[in-house]
């Protein structure tokens, strides 16, 4: 390698050192991100309320049985009065 090539390379290396300085993020970003990371760790997964679902299904079933019983009663009453 020629001497001027060596000097040129050294000069480039020096300039590269000046070029890539660490850059500080915008004010508040570091703290804001840290808060977000902490909040994420505290996320609580809410489970569905199974008791409510069971109660709804049971009340629907009871209502259905009641309606069925009522219809049967009507049929029996009207059926017997016709006879």
């Amino acid at each position: 390698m020629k001497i001027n090539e060596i000097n040129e390379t050294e000069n480039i290396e020096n300039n590269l050192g000046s070029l890539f300085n660490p850059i500080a993020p915008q004010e508040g970003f570091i703290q804001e991100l840290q808060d977000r990371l902490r909040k994420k760790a505290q996320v609580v997964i809410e489970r569905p309320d199974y008791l409510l679902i069971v109660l709804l299904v049971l009340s629907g079933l009871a209502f259905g049985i009641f309606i069925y019983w009522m219809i049967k009663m009507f049929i029996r009453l009207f059926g017997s009065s016709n006879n």
Partner: protein
Amino acid sequence: MNAPDKSKNNHDDVLDRAIGGDEEAFSILYQENIKKIYSYIYYRTGNVKDAEDLTARVFQRALKHITRYKRTKVPFSAWLYRIAHNLVANWHRDSKHKRELPLEDHAYIQSKSVVPEKQIEKNQQIEHLMRVVRKLSQDRQQLLILKYMDDLTNREIGAIMKKSEGAIKSLYHRTLKELRKKIDESQFL
């Protein structure tokens, strides 16, 4: 025990606690590395918005997978750089983000306030160099950023770029050669 040993043991202890799921320990690692990772991503993307977004994703991913982190001879920051590298690579791949970094945004311009003529000349050289660096391939730009911004060794850079120490050394020499050639060419234009 001398001071550097004590500091290393302390750092190892923090890392162990973070691997064990200690949030406070992870916060210490976050504080130690946030500026480096942000700077790296900023130089690779060229804009503040994407740098902030990708930096947040690096630490979210690190927090999620820290319990699976395996200790190696390279520093913990190499693992974070590796995550950042993957995210930046995806960012370049899946979009047309390859925007030129506005030179005015660079930190080195701050030194323009120092007026001496030699300084102005130096700044011009650096601005010119930045334009040339931007024309290099992604892996060559990455190598220069890691080498000059964080003073990482060839071995550490190799761990991040998944290349051997020798391959990094050779890539560095080829990069310098290409830079010299491109600078010479641009001076004749």
